């Protein structure tokens, strides 16, 4: 009995407790996407994108079929094998390459394919003159665009045009007192080998260091794109601490400061600011000959940045994220524009290695009082979630939870400012929200890190990239409806390994029998699929 079951819908079920599971995982990882990783059986999916990425990484159909046939417990459906071979065969019929005379050209080994794609209305504006029957000029600025379009047409182009080195700048990792963890090294290697791509690591697993490692590999000027100013400061701080870079070499390009230095950290917000119909800060991309562009929290990449990124195909790009689930379903755009997934580790695996803290996730079901239920039943549809998420019953339970964990560093996270203000008042804790100044935020975070404050109430501004290593308990009182990645990011706040190695707690307070409960179920799905089993307890049992 072997460990893999190949389903006809192209999912692969891997029994993780099996002795061959590790070998099998290695064999299928190049072409199959890990979709779910609960405790016993992991689900992988074979997608065209995954197969093409495998081709790009030098695997061929024979290897894929062999891996499936070797580890499969039951006969592999023939149709699936045929489909794998056919799909992989589509890759590489078209090639993007540099031509000494014509610049960027698209060549084909299969003339009808070229004819077919040239007939497409979406390809036509992207290509120039036909050089000969097998070759056509591509406008250099459309390199990303044409790759994206060809991918959608089902004829992915092999990009052999290479990368520009960019302006060289010495960057070294300063590994005194610490070292890159094995998986971080693998991630950096995976990225560098592939040239461009996305690294997926759990929150708290040290994605910044993967970025720093990549910079040390590139040894070139680097543009880092992050979500907000606090996060930009943290990057700067971390880079100064972990690499040979000095403060003068790192610039911040945000709403307040506009510094362009060999390593520049910019926020998505400033890039996407639009004045009089144009993006005035776009020139940042061209202001230096960047050798590497880093995208932090790539799952949040705003749509305009996708467009700019399409023009940057000649530069190395690294995307970092914990949760490549986008509620807008644009994961494939991330893959085609920034690059394929180069490294991915299940959360539980990193946890098993001790690099992130184990977490106990608890959903607390709160019974609403009768009057609250009545008010909920009569609320307008669009107000229903807000109402049930902010009921007084939930507040009381939250207070009880905080009291239960008195003395532990506790974060209370919510969506609605009124609710947070009210909670802050009752808990006698400061509230960090959108209107809190950056200086004030950093002051409060620092106080929390130092243990001067034990309870902090935060809005969704603290969803990402806030490094609070000592937070042990997180209590979520409301969220952005059913956002799966928000849930994961919030859990990530408490996953930094603790000094004493104890377990983190993540509470999600949910009003029973309301839409709050449905959203909670949806939010938890990503984490449940990563193997985080939520316990459900009744508030009355606490």
């Amino acid at each position, binding site marked *: 009995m072997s460990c893999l079951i190949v389903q006809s819908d192209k999912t692969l079920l891997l029994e993780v407790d099996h002795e061959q599971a590790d070998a099998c995982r290695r064999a299928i990882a190049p072409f199959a996407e890990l979709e779910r990783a609960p405790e016993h059986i992991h689900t992988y999916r074979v997608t065209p994108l995954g197969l093409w990425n495998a081709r790009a990484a030098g695997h061929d159909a024979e290897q894929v079929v062999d891996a499936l046939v070797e580890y499969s417990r*039951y006969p592999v459906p*023939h149709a699936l094998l045929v489909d794998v071979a056919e799909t992989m065969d589509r890759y590489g019929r078209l090639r993007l390459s540099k031509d000494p005379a014509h610049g960027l050209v698209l060549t084909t080994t299969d003339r009808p394919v070229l004819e077919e794609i040239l007939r497409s209305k979406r390809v036509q504006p992207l290509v120039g003159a036909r050089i000969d029957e097998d070759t056509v000029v591509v406008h250099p600025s459309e390199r990303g665009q044409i790759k994206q379009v060809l991918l959608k047409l089902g004829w992915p182009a092999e990009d052999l045009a290479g990368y520009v080195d960019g302006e060289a700048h010495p960057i070294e990792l300063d590994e005194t007192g610490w070292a890159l963890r094995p998986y971080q090294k693998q991630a950096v290697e995976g990225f560098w080998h592939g040239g461009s791509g996305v690294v997926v690591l759990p929150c708290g697993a040290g994605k910044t260091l993967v970025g720093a490692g990549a910079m040390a590999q590139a040894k070139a000027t680097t543009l880092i794109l992050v979500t907000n100013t606090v996060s930009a400061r943290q990057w700067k701080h971390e880079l100064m601490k972990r690499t040979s870079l000095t403060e003068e070499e790192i610039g911040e390009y945000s709403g307040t400061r506009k510094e362009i230095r060999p390593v520049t950290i910019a926020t998505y917000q400033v890039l996407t600011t639009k004045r009089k119909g144009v993006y005035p800060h776009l020139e940042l991309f061209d202001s230096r000959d960047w050798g590497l562009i880093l995208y932090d929290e790539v799952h949040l990449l705003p749509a305009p940045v996708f467009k700019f990124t399409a023009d940057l195909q000649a530069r190395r790009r690294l995307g970092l994220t914990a949760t490549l689930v986008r509620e807008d379903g644009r994961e494939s755009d991330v893959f085609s524009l920034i690059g394929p997934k180069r490294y991915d580790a299940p959360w539980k695996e990193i946890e098993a290695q001790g690099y992130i803290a184990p977490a106990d996730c608890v959903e607390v079901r709160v019974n609403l009082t009768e009057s609250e239920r009545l008010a909920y039943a009569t609320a307008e549809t669009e107000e229903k979630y807000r109402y049930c998420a902010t009921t007084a019953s939930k507040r009381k339970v939250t207070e009880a939870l905080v009291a239960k964990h008195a003395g532990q560093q506790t974060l209370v996270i919510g969506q609605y400012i009124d609710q947070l203000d009210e909670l802050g008042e009752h808990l006698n804790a400061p509230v960090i929200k959108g209107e809190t100044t950056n200086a004030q935020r950093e002051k409060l975070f620092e106080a929390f890190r130092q243990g001067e404050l034990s309870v902090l109430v935060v809005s969704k501004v603290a969803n990402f990239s806030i490094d609070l290593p000592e937070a042990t308990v997180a209590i979520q009182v409301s969220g952005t409806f059913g956002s799966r990645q928000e849930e994961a990011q919030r859990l990530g706040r408490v996953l930094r390994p603790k000094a004493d190695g104890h377990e983190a707690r993540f509470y999600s307070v949910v009003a029973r029998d309301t839409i709050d409960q449905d959203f909670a179920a949806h939010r938890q799905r990503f984490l449940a699929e990563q193997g985080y089993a939520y316990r*459900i307890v009744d508030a009355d049992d606490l």
Partner: protein
Amino acid sequence: MDTAEPRTLAEDLRARDDDALARLLRARPDLLTPVPNDLTQLATRAATRASVLRALDQVDAFTRQVAEALAVATDPCTYEALHVLMAGTQAAGGAPPLGEALPADRAAAVTAALPDALERLRARGVVWGGEDRLRLVRAARDVLAPSPAVASATGLGPSVGEATAGMSPARLQEIVADAGLPATHDPVSATRALAELFAGSGGLAPLLGTAPEGVRTVLDRLVWGPPYGEVRDATVPVRAKAATTAVQWLLARGLLLPAGPQNVVLPREAALALRGGRAHRSPEPAPPPIASVPRTARTVDLTAAGQALTAVRTVAEVLAAWDTGGPAVLRAGGVSVRDLKRTAAALDLPEPQAAFWIELAYAAGLVAADGEVDEVYAPTPAADGWAQLPAEQQWSALVAAWLTATRTSGLVGSRDPKGRALSALGPDLDRPLAPQVRRAALDLLAELPPGAAADRDALLARLRWNRPLRPGAEALRTDLLDWTLLDAEVLGVTGRGALAAHARPLLAGDPTGAAGRLGPLLPEPLDHVLLQADLTAVAPGPLVAPLAEMLGVLADIESKGGATVYRFTPASVRRALDAGRSAAELQSFLTAHSRTPVPQPLSYLIDDVARRHGTLRVGAASAYLRCDDDSVLAELLADRRANGLGLRRLAPTVLAAQVDPTALLERLRAMGLAPAAESPDGDVLITRPDARRTPPRTPPLPVTDGPPVPDDALLGLAVKAIRAGDRAATVSRSTPAPRDDGGLPRSPAADTLATMQAATLTGESLWIGYVNAEGAASQRVIAPLRVEGGYVTAYDHTADETRTFALHRITGVSTLAETDNPS
């Protein structure tokens, strides 16, 4: 053979022994219905065109080629002549042959295969006679011999005799002279001389030796057929001296003969000589080989077994989907396109595949129309029996049904010649060829070594050789073969294109043996699943039936295949509760069948759904009774007179009743109570008699006595008609004496014509009887104007217009009495 040569097919049959006759009847079963009285009758029937056609359709390509060769040979034909037609003249010394010779190995193969092929034709009663007098039955010759209308597979044209049939003897003599032959006495000997010149090996070569350039090119184009060429002025006689073009050169010498004003034909004898005597360019004495693609037998069997399991499951899914009544039966029969789509979506398969499984279930007798008023498809009682069988027996039952079914699901969605779409389970899906092709294709696969797959094109070529078909049927066969290979793969009869070991006994008609061989290959059904905290359950293999059934209710299926992934949702748990399970039962069921502890979120989910399940109750009542004094209600419940009201206490002050409010009010009043009716809002209803109104109506129109008054135009027409009829009835008829009974006038045709012609001169009117194109007879009064070409143009008084009458339709004529003549 008897010493006495048979003179007819009947005599030939009479001379055969009983075994030979039995062989004939086995090969041509249509000769047996009804059983012929004697051999003469049998021979007559065997020689009919329909029966011969059918017999020829059953033979292989080489045998058919032999028959075709006999059809272009002289009748009777010697074995040697036939051999030359098949294998060509041997290039043994003498002049080099005109045509390309058959390669020696092929010629040898033809020589070896010819006696058997001839014997097959003889056994089928298509050929008779001794070795030196081989006769093809006339109907076969008519079918196979080339004629101007039907091209022959040989590509040969008509013989010199046939092609010169309409030619003037003088022209024939010119050709004979130009061909370099002495003049003959009559056309018959002239054509014979020409034919002998062409056929004889010594005649044609010298003739062609003198030919100008271009002649060989023309001949090369026609020699292997089609033998007809298009030219200008084919019929204009050309003498050898006057010939300027290559075609004219050939026409002058009779090597091309006119076949119409614009067409010429290469006569058969000349073509045969140019071909080196062969009737076919490439005789195919041996079946084309089927190259086998080797695969591991084990892989083939496992793949097929996996697919067999999927097949059984898919059919089970069809049955489950239709368990509570499937799609409605269309008026013409079959499933509508929308219902097919729906079923396909339920099975998660493309529609053609869904159609296949539905048809398979139907062919196996597992689903059928229920025959109710609103007819729907539903599983049959046999389906319940089938569902209880082990998987391997389920499979063998399905495949046995598939092998012999004439219904062809591949046709679903296409249109019949009348443009109607063919629907699944609908009419017109039967193709008698389908099981034959299936059988033939699988038999060919069975001949290959175990685990060897075959190329589809090779299979098709072999099927074509085994049994050549007419073009229409051939297209269908190509489709059928493709479908067969596809179906066999999804059914698990083949794996990766090779016949699975477990399918071989089925071909030998042994379903039990097949099931026995399949059984060990199928995975053992499991009795456990893996439950996970993300609310999924994974069955890492097929489940035992009761477990699968229960899980199917309790959870939604997310992924199918070797394993099954189930997801628990509040809705799915509620479904299980609705099906009568309790939360405790579900919990213990999961505990019993999970190898790992039941995850807390799952047991919480079940308890949470169960907590809310049934807290709201829904029932039907026709009326309710409400009373603030609950003792009145208690009294009422106890009252025996209230028995028929179906009262039930819902709350201390509320009763539900099963009769409508009006009846309830009446009954309660009869019991001496004083109830009041309530509106839906709870107000007391004041009753007063309702005034009843119809919908808007228009007042009726007055009805007058008798028919409506006619208008002037109608009246005018009526009067004219009456007058004309009157004239026809009252004329005093003169010669020839009309009949007194008022029937049609009769006169001999010559008299009719003479009277007509006289009338055109005098301008008088005549009374005629006329039968129109539909055969209806009428009497008319006409004034003839012209008589020509068998038609009379005349003024018709009856219709008041000038018309043309065909003379042969006029039954007779009679002049009008002087007083009646209108002119």
